[in-house]
Each structure stands twice: as C-alpha cells, then as structure tokens.
C-alpha cells in the first residue's frame, strides 16, 4: 500500500480520476447555473420542479439523456457518426491535464502546457466537422462548414492574445506562468502599465468564439440551422457534445485565469497583511452569505413541501460548514488555491453567460470581419506594443 502511494504516478492518476469522474456533474451544474442566470435576466424562474429551486435538474437531465433512444440516420456514415462526439469530449478532458488547479493539484506540468491546450482545442474542431459531415444532412453540413471557418479564424486571434501573456511570462509551462506572476507581484492582466488588458479582451472575445457560445454560436444557430452540426444527434452522443462544450468553456476559462488572472494566487499575493482578510475572512463571508441565501430561499420554494424546505436547509448548513472549514489553518492552506482558481473560473463562466444573455447573434459576414479585420490586427498591435513595453 505504502509503495502505491509513493509511486510518482499516484497523484496524477488520482487527480485525473477525480476530474474525469466529477466533471460531468460540474458541467451539469454549469448548465443549471446558466439556465438560472438566463432565466433571471429574462424575468423568469428557470427550473424549479426537480428538487428545491431545480437543484436536482442536472441529474434528471443526465438520466433522461442516458435513457433516450439512440437514433442513427439511415444515410449517415455510421463509423464516423459514432466517432465524432468522442473527439471533442476526449480533447477537452485531455486539456485538463495541464491546468494547474492549485499549487498541489496539477496532473502534469509540461513545458509546453499552453500549446497543449491550444492543440487540443484545434483537434476538438474535428469533432464538429466530422459530426456535421457524417450526418449526411444539409443543416449539419452547413453548421460544420461555418464552424471550421469560424474556429480557424479565431484561433489566430486567440494565439496572438496568448503570445502576449507568454511573452510576459517567458515560459509556456502553466505552473511557471503563475509563479512568474507571483515574482512580478502583479496579475498579467494589469501588467505593462495596464496595456495587457488589450490582449485579455482579445482573448475573451476569441475564447467565446472558440467555444461556440452566443453571440458567436453560428455553427449551431438554432433559428437558422435547427441545431447546426448536432441536428441529427440524440441521447448520449448529444450529451457527449454538450459535455465537451462545457468542458472546453472550463478549460479556456482556466487557461485565461492562469495566464491573465494569476491562477491559484489570491489578489495582491505579496501584501502580507491581506493574508487573513482575503484567505480566511473572504471565503468565510462568501459561504456564510450563500448559506443565509439558501435559508432565505426556503421561503420562496414554488411547489412548497416540508421535504423540499428541509433539503434546502441541509444545503444551507453544508455551505455554512464549508465556510467554517476555512478557519482551520491546515485545511485552509490545502484548499485556498483551489478556492481562488475555481472562483476566478466561475467569474469567467458567469461573464460568458452574461454575454450570452445580452448580445444578439452576429451575422456571418460580421463574424468574419470581427475576426479578421479587428481582432487579428488588434492582437498583432498588442503583441508589438507589449513586446516593446516589456523590454523597457
């Protein structure tokens, strides 16, 4: 037993298993968050029936998708139709291997970490194209064509934005990028007298386009293309596409957080007196407020029953206990990095949902002109300016 724990592959394998096992659940809850936030923006309630305030909705959805009939169109290319949804799910989960969740929670730290993420997103596009083509149907093919053009265009802008960050860090390794921000005592987004905010904005826009989110969701634009490349997919295969989409949102958010927002570092990591307020008091207040909010929500359960109220109260108490755990110094040291990383990724995911709720979809020619005529020149200019300022 001792020797298994001591083995150098032990920690990476455990972390991998936890990520692969937990991520589908997390993706389900990102979907729930998205539905709830969008509902709130549109003055609706969102899912309310399955569990109190729809808290069990992702599980119900997963069961529904698994139990659905698996339809393969008669004229489809069966082998490729089968293979296509596996590709993006595989690549998105592979990219998790280089994401540093905290100082201790990282599967592997390779010296081309950022390139691995960008390579995986490049291969992931194949899933969309192959899926769209193998369905042997018009809407999916149109969706696949749009997506390949879109993703190839925005990959350039994304790469230019990443280059700015890599240039400042001087390394491609994800862990070292964060350590470099600790050394320079500043998050890269504020570095170079604030000029790095430009590549960050380019990164954010290109990231939304790379993950096929509104306002750049032309590959699946439901009002024009039914569901784009996913039209012929149903049940579990469709769920794989969905999982891949949310995994890539998380990965690209994580890459952005690592490169621009200081990864697992707390804000002002070098100001010693902020240690207690930010690392102990802030999570405590956050979780206590969450718990109090849950208590308050028990009064607003739509189909009210005692069991639902008790369920809600249990969640509230769990949140409060989680908050109190941060008071124990040993536990705090172990989880605080993960807390900050997930909080920052959560902010980016929320930003993406917010943008989805506010912007209308771009027309195809607008999409191309934003990508080629604005983002790429701005990205090139940002590389130039940041290279000069970085040398000063």
């Amino acid at each position, binding site marked *: 037993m001792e020797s298994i724990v001591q083995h150098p592959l032990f920690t990476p394998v455990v972390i991998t298993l936890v990520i692969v096992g937990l991520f589908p659940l997390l993706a389900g809850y990102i979907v729930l968050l998205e539905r709830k936030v969008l509902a709130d923006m549109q003055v609706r309630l969102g899912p309310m029936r399955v569990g109190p305030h729809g808290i069990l909705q992702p599980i119900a959805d997963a069961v529904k998708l698994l139990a659905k009939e698996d339809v393969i169109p008669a004229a489809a290319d069966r082998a490729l139709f089968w293979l296509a949804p596996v590709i993006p799910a595989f690549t998105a989960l592979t990219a998790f291997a280089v994401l540093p969740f905290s100082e201790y929670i990282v599967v592997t730290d390779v010296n081309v970490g950022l*390139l691995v993420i960008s390579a995986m*997103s*490049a*291969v992931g596009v194949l899933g969309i194209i192959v899926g769209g083509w193998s369905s042997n149907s018009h809407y999916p093919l149109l969706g696949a064509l749009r997506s390949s053009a879109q993703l190839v265009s925005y990959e350039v802008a994304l790469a230019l934005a990443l280059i700015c960050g890599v240039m400042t860090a001087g*390394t491609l390794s994800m862990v070292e990028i964060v350590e470099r921000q600790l050394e320079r005592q500043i998050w890269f987004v504020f570095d170079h007298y604030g000029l790095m905010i430009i590549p960050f904005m380019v990164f954010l826009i290109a990231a939304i386009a790379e993950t096929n989110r509104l306002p750049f969701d032309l590959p699946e634009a439901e009002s024009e293309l039914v569901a784009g490349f996913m039209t012929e997919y149903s049940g579990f295969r469709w769920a794989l596409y969905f999982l891949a989409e949310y995994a890539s949102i998380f990965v690209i958010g994580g890459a952005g957080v690592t490169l621009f927002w200081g990864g697992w570092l707390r804000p002002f990591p070098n100001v010693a007196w902020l240690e207690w307020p930010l690392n102990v008091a802030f999570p405590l207040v956050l979780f206590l407020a969450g718990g109090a909010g849950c208590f308050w929500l028990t009064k607003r359960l739509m189909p009210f029953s005692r069991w639902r109220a008790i369920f809600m109260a249990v969640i509230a108490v769990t949140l409060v206990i989680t908050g109190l755990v941060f008071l124990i110094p040993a536990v705090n040291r172990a989880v605080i990095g993960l807390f900050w990383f997930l909080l920052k990724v959560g902010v980016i995911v929320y930003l993406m949902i917010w943008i989805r709720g506010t912007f209308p979809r771009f027309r195809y020619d607008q999409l191309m002109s934003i990508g080629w005529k604005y983002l790429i020149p701005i990205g090139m200019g940002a590389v130039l300016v940041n290279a000069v300022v970085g040398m000063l």
Partner: protein
Amino acid sequence: MADTILFYIFAAFVLGGGVLTVTRRNSVHSALWLIVSLLGTAGLFLLRQAEFLFAVQIILYIGGVVLLILFVVMLVNLDETARLRQFNKAWWVALACAVVVGIEIWYVLNRGLETLEPGEAPQTAATIEGNTERLADVLFSEYLLPFEIASLLLLVAIVGSVVMAKKRI
C-alpha cells in the same frame, strides 16, 4: 521498454494511416486517416523529447492544414468521386519505383543492421531543462536571418494567393 512499445504503436499509426490515406475511395476518410498518420508523427516527436515540435505538429498540421483540406473535400460530390478510377495508366512506373526503393532499403538494412542500434538518447542540457527555450534562443539568435526570410516568403505567398483568388482588387 515502454518507449519501444510506444514507438511501435506510433509507427503503426504513421504507416497504417499513410497506407489507408492513399487507398480509401472516400476522400473525407482519406483526410481523416491522414490525421491519424500525423498524430503518429507527433507522438514520435514526443518520444524524442521534442515537446515543442509535438504541439506545433498538432496545431499546424491537424488544426490547420488537414482542417482546410476537410473544408474543401466536404463540398465535393462524393458519389461521383467514388466512381472515378483511382489509378491512371502510369501505375506500373510507380510500382517499379516503389519496388526499387524497397529493394534498396532492404539491402542497406541487411548490410548495416548491427550499426543501426540507436542507443540511449543523449542526456544533454537541452533534454533536461526543456528544449523549447533552447529552440527559441537558437531560432532568434543564430538562425534569425533564415527565419526572417521564411516569414517574408510566407508573406509573399499570402499576397500572391489573394491576388490569384480576387479578380478585382
């Protein structure tokens, strides 16, 4: 041991993918087998501790080149292309060339098989501290001029393709 097994797996990727690329009738399948072949090459790069080449191989060749090939091939009417003859009249010339090259390789392999043993990978500073940084250093100091010439060549190619594609500029 693990390295040897992985080498044979990646080699099978490269060769099998290559053979299937030229023999498939459906051109989309051909393009996808080409991806398998390129993935094998990327794996071989990784086995030789060339992480940067591995990542760039995937980003540029799979994410860029093959994607554009697929983009074009998807628009082709496949029923028609499947009925076309795959070989033209000069196939026996190619066959003869392949046989000659095959005999040559077999002969050379037979003569120098003992000296072919590759031996241990050198544990130089580059393999230990990460060769991505080394590559960047060398590329932007020693080989700066060839690098700039190559970028100029690419620029000319881009401008040329725009001139050829657009009737009216």
